[in-house]
């Protein structure tokens, strides 16, 4: 840049030249290779767990063990909720595994309505495993199909990085309102799963994001902590996230409001991550 010095000072005095912007070197594309690699390993690891838990869950349904199947519903879904940015790239499987009745013209009665939420309706609303075996079998084969496809997939970097915001948007749209798991009321499990998945992506690119905008990184971390502090009020055992969550109807109005703020901020802020890392 070869502006005459006086003009340069005049311009910067009026804020016309973004000194902050030009002071940072842009993220080099090859610096994103390691985070994308680690993200795929994270997804594969979660998928392996998802497949194992799905097997246990669907076996319980087929054996007619209602209480066991009910208790396995939420802990199984968590793995799917974590890896949704990748899982939902497969439109057919995302629909057959995770669609809600509202996605179908004839709701619960729709012949195409399958997957977790169809089983949720049977297990928690009708409180029975009767007639659920075919849905359980279909779910298991869909999960195996998903694992196979993800193993073969080259992860698109912009979908991975954009996935952090997508997960928080998902929380904002369907978890805070409590519409995701309307019969089981296990929404907080899914909520935590989405947060885990978003946080993982953020953690992997954090060193790169910090080079570009340290204040941005700080804001994200603060909002994650305040959101998780609110979620921690609802662990089954105090201080132990692994113990799971109480039902969503136990969440106080004050805490529902307390969650909306950080969730909205995170969804908005994280949506700038792609651009920050040069992936737009």
């Amino acid at each position, binding site marked *: 840049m070869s502006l005459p010095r006086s003009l340069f000072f005049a311009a910067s005095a009026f804020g016309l030249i973004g000194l902050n912007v030009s002071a940072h070197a842009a993220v*080099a*594309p*090859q610096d*994103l*290779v*390691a985070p*994308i*690699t680690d993200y*795929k*390993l994270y997804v*594969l690891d979660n998928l392996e767990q998802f497949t194992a838990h799905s097997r246990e869950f669907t076996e319980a349904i087929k054996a007619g063990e209602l209480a066991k199947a009910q208790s396995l519903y939420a802990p199984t879904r968590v793995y799917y909720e974590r890896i949704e940015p990748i899982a*939902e*790239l*497969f*439109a*057919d*499987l995302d*629909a057959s595994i995770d*669609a809600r009745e*509202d*996605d*179908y*013209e*004839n709701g619960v009665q*729709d012949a*195409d309505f399958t997957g977790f939420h169809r089983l949720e309706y049977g297990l928690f609303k009708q409180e029975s495993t009767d007639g659920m075996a075919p849905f359980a079998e279909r779910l298991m084969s869909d999960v195996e199909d998903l694992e196979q496809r993800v193993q073969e997939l*080259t*992860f*698109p*970097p912009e979908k991975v990085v954009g996935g952090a915001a*997508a997960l928080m*948007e*998902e929380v904002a*749209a369907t978890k805070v*309102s*409590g*519409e995701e798991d309307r019969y089981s009321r296990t929404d907080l499990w899914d909520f935590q799963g989405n947060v885990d998945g978003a946080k993982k992506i953020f953690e992997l690119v954090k060193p790169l994001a910090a080079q570009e905008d340290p204040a941005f990184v700080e804001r994200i971390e603060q909002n994650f902590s305040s959101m998780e502090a609110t979620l921690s009020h609802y662990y089954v055992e105090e201080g132990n996230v692994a113990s799971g969550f109480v039902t969503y109807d136990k969440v106080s109005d004050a805490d529902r409001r307390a969650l909306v703020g950080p969730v909205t901020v995170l969804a908005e802020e994280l949506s700038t991550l792609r651009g920050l890392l*040069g*992936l737009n």
Partner: protein
Amino acid sequence: MSDSSSPTPSSGLLRLGMALAALLMLAALGLFYLSLGDAPASDAEGTSVTITASGCEPNALTVPAGRHRFTVINESERAIEWEILDGVMVLEERENIAPQLHQQITASLQPGEYQMTCGLLSNPHGTLTVTAVEGQASIQSVSAKTMIGPLAEYRVYLILQGRELQKSAEALQRAIADDDLAAAQQAFVQARLVDQRMALAAGMFSDLDQRLNARADYFAEREQDPDFVGFHRLAEGLFVARSTADLAPVAKQLSADVALLTARLQRDGVPASQLTKGSARVLRAWHDYQQSQPQLNARELADLRGLQQGAGKVVSLLSPLLQGQPQLAEALQQSSDGLAQTLQEAEPDRVLLLQQTEQLTSALAQANEQLTPAY
């Protein structure tokens, strides 16, 4: 969301609720007004599609290749998502478009036939035809950015193969320690196959490559040389002498070297240029050695199977980047598939294998030239 059994809200909350509802309505009206204003359906730069309760209108769109803006108008009564699909893969999507609002979505599309989801999952998909633009040879020119995905995927491949190699090297070490010749031979075959899939990566480290993969010919005292270790030394014992005698320290060293290799690869990965250059290098080495031999033996054939599988992974990752050079992309894919097919036979023809290995090597070298801007 609220069911009939919920307690009656206090009047204060009720007032707050009403005020909020009024605000929301105003905001929605404002958005609606804006939505009417800023993007008329006839926008020359973009394409509009309206989602009704039963599907997309129009249900078939045609747009030119490249970056294109779509305006999705939700005229159904539910929040919807709109997606562009390539088969079952989601290329672009916009979620949670509220009723009566519109959203914009910009997509970079290659020429081809795609589908659109149109609201309810039970609604029929629409079609989206992307036409080629004259003179627009390659929309997605090869750049360092386009290499991120393939390089990450290859790194994942090496890490997973590395884990498998470590497991089979340990099994080999145990079988030799137990003096179980059959089990040791079996473990060797598995370990060597994985080692050859990863040959280009091992080849980046001369110390490890020598200890793992060097042939007896490279040592002064040949088979008797104390520095002759690794896979070829183990093969001498297990398949020629048919004994595990003296192999325990060699197997132990091999396990340690494999662990070191996987650690290095986990830390550093592989530079972009090595994908093509490294694959070509290891195939050429096999080809040249084979040419100097009177005939093809079973272990050399097994090695080529491993090398081909490793190169096949590279080809599958890089072919999509060569869209600007469709002939080269096709030649690369075909030479890789051709060799793979021949190798499926129990006793493939040696001359054909030599020919096909050479073809694949030269296709990889050409691809390397095209990909140079991305390194």
